[in-house]
Structure formats: structure tokens, C-alpha cells
């Protein structure tokens, strides 16, 4: 599903050049649930930017669902993003003046899905995360866990190939974190490919594979025995 070969990225900071990614090789098959771990400055954000087509690598190859991702115009990148990727963020990033339903329906708007169909689909996804009765509520009326579930429903609504979750439990307490991880695991059980960036060990162990990033290189890549979040809920 995802194939990265010898990925390099450096940022120019004035006269200094900061080499962030120093040759990343990484492959993820369809249906995998991968945790990307690393301390801050390890390059995991940059990797996520590149995987999310929000930034371009200096060199190296990136193939997503057999489509080579290179020489993208920003418009093309936006199209691919909409078609291939769903994002889940630490701070949920719901649009605060739109109801839960409208937030979930937004990626479908950019897919040019008609209004009515959009609403039906969005309601369906809200039901799957257990928030159907909260559809008309604004994000400010929801708890943190509920917000993240709305965000997950939104990421799912576009039916992407890959879900990219950037510290999805970073702003939640343990119990809510496990609830969210439970949901992510269930989505993964249905065959969706998910990448989770995290620095929490217990969250990482709820994935099926852990990739450790340090100073711009992968220092460890191992399959693990998945801890089911269900038991903590």
C-alpha cells in the first residue's frame, strides 16, 4: 500500500541546513496498523507531512496504492489527499462553527458529492462511531473523546486508502484514549490501513507493528503482539 525508498528531506534555516530525514525505507501492506514512534525532532512530523502529501521530499520514492507520488502540483496533491488519505489529529481540528454532521460531510463536499447524499453518508459514519444522536451538535458541545470520534468519522467518510493519525490520543485521558484506540482497531479490523504517530508506549502497543524513528533514520521496525483496547474500556 505504502512504499518509501531512500527518502531524504532537509530544511534550510538561514545559512544552516537541517537534515531531518536521512534515507527512510519503509513499506506498509494493506490492512496494517503501524505505530510510528520517536521523540520530538526525530523527524516523524516531517515523515507524516510527506506521507500526507503536504510536503515534498528532496529525494527518494514514494508510492501510494501503486501510484507514484512525485512532481505534484498543489491541486493534484489536494486531489490525491482527498481520494487516498484521511487525517486524524491530536487536537481534533473540527470546524467549530459546523455541526458534527457538517464536519463529517466536508470531505465529501470536496469530492463533489451532492448535498443530500453527503448528509446520508455522513450520518452513516457518525452512527458507526456511535454519535448519531449528536449529529446536530457543535464541537463545543462535545467531550474530547466525542470530538475525536467525530474526527475519525470525518476521516473515514472520504473512504480513503490510508488513515494518518497524528497523536490521536495526545489530548485525551487514558480511558478516552483507549476508547479511541478501540475504534481505530475496529476500523483496522475491517481492512483499513492506518498509520499512528505517537510517543506513548501503551498506545503504540495497541498497533500491530512499531517503527522507531531517531535522528531521521528508522532504528527499529518490529511486528508486535497487538494489545486489544477493548479490555480497558
Amino acid at each position, binding site marked *: 500500500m505504502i512504499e518509501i525508498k531512500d527518502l531524504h528531506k532537509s530544511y534550510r534555516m538561514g545559512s544552516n541546513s537541517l537534515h531531518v530525514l536521512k534515507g527512510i525505507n519503509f513499506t506498509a501492506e494493506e490492512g496494517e496498523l503501524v505505530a510510528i514512534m520517536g521523540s520530538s525532532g526525530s523527524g516523524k*512530523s516531517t515523515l*507524516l*507531512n510527506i506521507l*500526507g502529501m*503536504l*510536503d*515534498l521530499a528532496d529525494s527518494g520514492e514514494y508510492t501510494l496504492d501503486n501510484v507514484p507520488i512525485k512532481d505534484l*502540483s*498543489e*491541486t493534484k496533491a*489536494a*486531489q490525491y*489527499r*482527498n*481520494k487516498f488519505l484521511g*487525517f486524524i*489529529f*491530536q*487536537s481534533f*481540528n*473540527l*470546524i467549530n*462553527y*459546523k455541526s458534527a454532521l*457538517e464536519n463529517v460531510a*466536508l*470531505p465529501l*463536499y*470536496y*469530492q*463533489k458529492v451532492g*448535498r443530500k447524499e453527503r448528509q446520508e453518508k455522513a450520518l452513516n459514519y457518525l452512527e458507526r462511531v456511535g454519535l448519531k444522536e449528536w449529529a446536530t451538535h457543535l464541537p463545543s458541545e462535545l467531550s474530547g473523546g466525542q470530538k475525536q470520534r467525530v474526527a475519525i468519522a*470525518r476521516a473515514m467518510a*472520504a473512504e480513503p486508502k490510508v488513515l494518518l493519525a*497524528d497523536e490521536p490520543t495526545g489530548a485525551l485521558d487514558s480511558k478516552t484514549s483507549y476508547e479511541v484506540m478501540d475504534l481505530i482497531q475496529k476500523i483496522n479490523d475491517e481492512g483499513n490501513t492506518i498509520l499512528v504517530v505517537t510517543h506513548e508506549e501503551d498506545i503504540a502497543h495497541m498497533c500491530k507493528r512499531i517503527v522507531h524513528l531517531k535522528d531521521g533514520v528508522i532504528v527499529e521496525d518490529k511486528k508486535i503482539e497487538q494489545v486489544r483496547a477493548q479490555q480497558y474500556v
Partner: protein
Amino acid sequence: MWDDCLIRYTLAYFINHQTPTIMFDIERWQEIFDTIRKNKLRTFLTGLSVASGIFILVILLGFGQGMRNGIEHEFKQDATTSIWAWPEITSKAYQGLNPGRVIQFKNTDYEMAGRMFKEDIEYESPRVFVRSVNINYGSESLVYGIRGVSPEFQFIEGFSTVEGRFINYKDEVSLGKVAVIGKKIKEDVFKDVESPIGEIIDISGIRFTIIGVFNEQNEREEEVIYIPISTAQRVFNGNDRLDTMSYTLPPAENFDEAVAQAVKFKDNLREYLKKEHKVAPDDESGVRVWSAMEEAKRYYGITNNMKLFFWFVGGCTIIAGVVGVSNIMLIVVKERTREIGIRKALGAKPWSIVGMILHESIFVTAISGFAGLIFSMALLEFVGPHVQIEYVKNPSVNFNVAFSTVMVLVVAGALAGLVPALRATRVQVIESLRDE
């Protein structure tokens, strides 16, 4: 890479979204109405600044027009087409005559000119100043100028009679001993009688009956007593001497034509009078002819300059409005950085972001611009006619002018909004979304 794409996105937006697409993209409109409905205060404040900008501009232009109207009105009190001729002392030798010769107009000059320029003239009247006379009203001695004129003089000066009547043709033929006095004289001298009509004044031993009171814009012009010119010449030893000759010309199609007509008549009249009195053709002195129209042209010039000035001020107001809109849009973009980041992450194309911001701002500017326009026009419409300030009359504004101002504001607002909108497309998604 992102930077050099910006211009392409902008162009792509305008190419992909030609007018029909913008107008009928219902999804986009729904999205914009949602945004506006959920951001009422922000939208209201943006709209208010635009509306008050337009309001100020329209009121300003309205008062500019009002001042123009006022000046025109003040000026129209005197018949603007009047032309006056009077004799002077020559300054050049001509046909064996020495310079310094005193020219004297005669009745024949007036009659001949009247016959020659019959076609061009609307009203005409000669005038003599009656000098060295004593005026008495009862036991009171009066010090006023006495002038002999023809009946048509009232039209040349634009008098309106407030009581009685002006000198008429019959008075002139019958050498009537009648007098018309200015309103100021009535107020000063005849304050004890109910009406000065029928009162007798004594002018150097001859009794004149007052038949009318006239009203003039200028108070000094009201301190004059008019009697028939025939009487003035016959009774006060004026013989056939005249002091001035005055004319008005018929109304012309437009202002420029009126000026041309006045200049032509003035030149012809002077040429004729100079020839009659053997004044050198190149002598500036000798015969003077003055045209009110040429004076009027100067006044119109002033109001034109004023109009220009008001447009300048109006233009500055528009610029201020545009800067305001642009400023607010910058704040909007900053405020919505996170939202824009979210939209981009969800697959919004750059031109859809640009389009969203521009579309919303143009919609808001247009609606509030029209609100300001309608409110200010209504104010001018209802309050304008009641404005009672000197030199300001019926402030009003040309609707087309105001309408195009709003259009300019909308377009300029959109242009000013382009920079913030383009900045919006540069929002870095992960950075904008990472932290609260």
C-alpha cells in the same frame, strides 16, 4: 515550488470559475451562507465598515452636488445672460481725434442697436443716472440714487415686485410721474404707513407717485428709485443722453452655447458702438461691454473644481474603505488559518480556498455596499430637499455614480482580498493544526 504556483492557481480559479459557474454553483453558495450564518458578528462588522464607507462617500458627493446647486441657484438670481454697455474716456487717437475724449451714448445709439440686433435680443433697456436732485418725503430728506429706465429693465435685473407694479409702457410714453422703490427704502422710510403705494415723493420740486416696491437679492441694489426714462430725460434736463444700455439674450440650448452667444453679441455691440463714436478699434477704453455670462463661466469653473475636489475626497474614502476591507480579510484569513488547514487536509484545492474567501468577501461587500447606498440615498432623498444652508441646495447624488462607486468598491475589495486569499493557500497544514 508552492510560490510560483500561486499565480497559476489564481488564474485557474478565474478560468475555471467564469461568471456562470460562480453564480450557479449552489454548493458553494450554501457553503458561504453556512459560513456567514455561523459568523454573524464578523460578517456584520465587515459589512458595517463597508456600508459606512459607502454612506460617507455618497453623503459627501451629495453635498458636493448640493453646493453646486446652491451656487448655481445664488447666481441665477441675476439674469445670467445680461449684457451691459457703458461709455468711457478714449485712450487712443483715431481719425484725427485726440485721446482722452469723453464718449456719450445717445438715444439714437440705443434705438439703432436695438434695430440691428433685434434677432439676438430678449429684453433691452437704457438707463440714465439722475444727478443733483433733492428728494423729499414729507419733511424728510432722502438720499437715494434715481435712475430712469424702460419697463423691460425689471427682467434684465431680475427684479420681482413685492407690491404694486414696475414701470410700464404707458408710463414711458406718457412721461408718467411715477416711481418704483426698493424694498429697503420701504423699510427705512415708509415704515409708518401701511403701504408706500400711492405715497408722494418730491424730486426737486416735482411730485412723483410711488406705484411699486421691488425686491433684489443684493440689499444695496434696493436703495434705488426707478422712474420712466422718458420722464428722467425730459424733466431733469437729460436730453437724449444715456448712461448705460443693457440687454438680455434668449435662453440657449446649453451653457457653452449661451457663452458663445453672449460673446458674439458683446463683440458685435462693441464694434458698432465704437464705430458710431469714432473710437479706435484697438482701443480697450472708450466703449465698455460686460457680459454676465462670461462671469458665470468663471463660477461654473469654480464648481467644476469643487466637483473635482469632492471626487478626490471620495476617491480617498474609497481607498480607505478598500484598505478596511483588505484589513478585515487579512484578519479573517488569520482567524481561519486552522479552518483553512483543515479544509486543505480534507482535500480542498488551492483555488477552492481562494474562491471561498473571495466569494464570501465579494458577497458581503456587495450586500453591505448596497445597504449603505440605499440608506444614504434615502437620506438624501428625504432630508436633502429640506436642507436650508446658504450655498447648499438640494444635496443629491446621481444614482449611476453611486452605483459604479459600489461596483468599484466590490472589485477593489476583491483585489485587496486577493493577497490574504493567496496567503491562505500557503497555510502549512500540519503546523496550523498541530497545536491549540
